[in-house]
């Protein structure tokens, strides 16, 4: 690989508090050699390839803490190759993959498989997670130590919270000693049973079982109480309501250490968008009121929410063309994560810096990986985008194998132009 110099870039790297017009030099090993406004062409070797960024924005490659890849077991929904293509087209270079595959990733042999398979087929950085409990049953914790040693980055039951308080307390106690990261889907199973959308006027009108915000709040309250006793690395996957934020605020103010994520779905949609039974908007946690959405945006601004995830959940058409209650839950989103996040900049609710932070360095710090930054010496994973370019989201143009986008026909501003992985240009928009 030859050296590269990217010139005339507006570099935004919150990990270095950098927002400047400048250049980036990538060395022969695909690492950042120099970065900043003072970097000159003459700093690069004479043979270096020059790429003009034309004042577009250059950020660290996005780190998505929650995406589902269909392998193994659901290859018809998504595979490593299609997920990689979708990710890179969306400027995402690092992905935490979910373990609710078939079979589940809850033992060491599955980890070997997934890592080997990912290495062969994927063209992004993959960080597999394993289940928190065997068979996602919430009863027996998985082998945190052995699985971590094999390369598991975090533990999560993805779609379920551990319901039994005693089990959860043991998990946190044990995890606090080994230092593994727990990512909890905070939803009380009994309270949310059969529920498919937010409990409120819309669920009453559509005649669907609702999921109250209490289902989420009660697990957060419980877990944070436990966390006080058993301080471990604890992350709330996705919150959806303003009531949850109040609990989080109180606990963060009391000095409790934990991190919080939110799905781009809950930031860019509300329950009214479900309209006349649009099953593509059936997501978990459910879309809630506009008030909740606004509170979540505010939560990112105030730092109560650390991370924005795509919650990329590919589902085939069969699974969605069913009566709402029976339809599959989830929406794809890895490719549309950045443009939807940029909406909050364009409508002046969030600064660019906050958005980029929640997509890059914050998740990297929580995961304790050397990603989401363009500091000298780090891998040159980068996303370059045109902040203002308008386009219309069309499922057919998205690269995921499944086309269940929740934002079909949405007009967005902000288009990924190029994505670099380890200094290599791996995506270029047409």
């Amino acid at each position: 690989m030859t050296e590269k110099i990217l010139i005339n870039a507006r570099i935004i790297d919150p990990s270095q508090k950098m927002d400047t017009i400048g250049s980036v030099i990538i060395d022969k090993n695909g690492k950042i050699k120099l970065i900043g406004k003072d970097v000159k062409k003459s700093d690069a070797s004479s043979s270096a390839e020059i790429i003009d960024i034309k004042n577009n924005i250059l950020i660290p490659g996005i780190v998505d803490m929650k995406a589902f890849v269909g392998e193994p077991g659901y290859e018809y929904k998504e595979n490593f190759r299609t997920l990689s293509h979708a990710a890179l087209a969306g400027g995402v270079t690092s992905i935490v993959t979910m373990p609710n595959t078939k079979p589940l990733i809850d033992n060491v042999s599955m980890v070997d498989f997934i890592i080997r398979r990912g290495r062969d087929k994927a063209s992004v950085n993959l960080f597999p997670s394993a289940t928190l409990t065997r068979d996602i049953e919430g009863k027996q914790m998985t082998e945190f130590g052995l699985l971590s040693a094999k390369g598991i980055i975090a533990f999560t039951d993805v779609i379920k919270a551990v319901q039994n308080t005693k089990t959860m307390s043991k998990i946190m106690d044990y995890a606090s000693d080994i230092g593994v990261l727990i990512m909890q889907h905070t939803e009380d199973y009994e309270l949310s049973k059969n529920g498919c959308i937010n409990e409120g006027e819309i669920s009453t009108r559509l005649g669907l079982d609702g999921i109250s915000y209490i289902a989420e709040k009660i697990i957060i309250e419980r877990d944070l109480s436990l966390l006080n006793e058993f301080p471990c690395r604890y992350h709330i996957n996705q919150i959806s309501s303003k009531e949850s934020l109040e609990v989080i605020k109180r606990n963060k103010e009391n000095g409790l250490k934990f991190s919080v994520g939110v799905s781009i779905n809950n930031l860019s949609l509300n329950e009214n968008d479900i309209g006349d039974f649009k099953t593509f908007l059936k997501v978990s946690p459910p879309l809630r009121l506009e008030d909740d959405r606004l509170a979540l945006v505010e939560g990112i601004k105030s730092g109560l929410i650390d991370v924005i995830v795509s919650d990329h959940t590919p589902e085939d058409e069969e699974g969605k063309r069913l009566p709402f209650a029976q339809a599959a839950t989830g929406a794809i989103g890895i490719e549309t994560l950045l443009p939807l996040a940029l909406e909050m900049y364009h409508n002046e609710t969030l600064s660019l810096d906050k958005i980029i932070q929640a997509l890059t360095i914050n998740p990297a710090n929580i995961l304790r990986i050397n990603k989401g930054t363009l500091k000298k010496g780090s891998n040159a994973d980068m996303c370059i985008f045109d902040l203002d370019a308008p386009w219309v989201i069309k499922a057919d143009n998205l690269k995921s194998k499944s086309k269940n986008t929740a934002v079909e026909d949405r007009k967005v501003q902000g288009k990924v132009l190029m994505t670099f992985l380890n200094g290599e240009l791996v995506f270029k928009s047409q």
Partner: protein
Amino acid sequence: MAVNKNTLAIKDQPKHLLGIQNLSIHEAKSILEESKTFIELNRSASKKLEVLRGKTQINLFFEPSTRTQSSFDLAGKRLGADVMTMNVANSALKKGETLMDTAMTLNAMHPDIIVIRHQDSGAPNLLSQKVNCTVINAGDGRREHPTQALLDALTIINRKGKIEGLKIAICGDILHSRVARSNIYLMNMLGAEVNVIAPKTLMPKSIERLGVKSFTNMKKGLDGCDIVMMLRLQNERMQGSFLPSKREYYEFYGLTPEKLKFANKEALIMHPGPMNRGVEIDTKLADDINVSLVKEQVELGVAVRMACLKMYCKK
């Protein structure tokens, strides 16, 4: 001149009756007007018309039903349609065939009308997107049961002469009731004032946003009401965590002659059936022809369904 294909396509689209929510006040009123013309016919010796001769009507019932199903069956036959009833509760769908597959299969047989009853809210809407015939909702989940509300309205009009200005109480398991929802929309639309009465656990969230007043106390809720609609309380709700016991429910929400006194002197009772005597309604009261409209509801149900079939079937 070139034919505008788009306009043609729109004209070709069948009309569906999916819920009261989708109706305009004009449509609702014309269905009721049309229904009136069938009341006498149904009471006469010769009940058969030829309005839907040559048309095929399929009753697709995913949930067991006695009165709605037989009512639609009769209505179609009296209009001269060929009526086929499929009880899907124990057929292909049990074998894993989806609603969509069934829809496509039936569609291939060129029906003109499909009447559907399904346990999932929104199923008729989904069906209507996939077939090119008229879809009539005969009850979906807990969302809507439009023909029930229309027959209730017709029954009230028949007795009271109008709906506008009346005060109507709907009492019982509002949470799980499609009848309640459709009636709330229709009675509001026709100018009535609607009270809903239920224990808190059986009251849907934000129900007031549908334009009703909600009460947990029957005395307050029935005050000044001209019509008292009782809803069926399904037995399985008793075993869940909704209510402490049948006895306690009857004590506070069962309609008895004493509780009926809270309503207007001339108040009439309605029930969509089937009734749980001694659970939501006193058995003598249910049979009292001076106050109970239950039999009339069933009778006028056929007339309303005839009107709907006639008006919605593609010519």
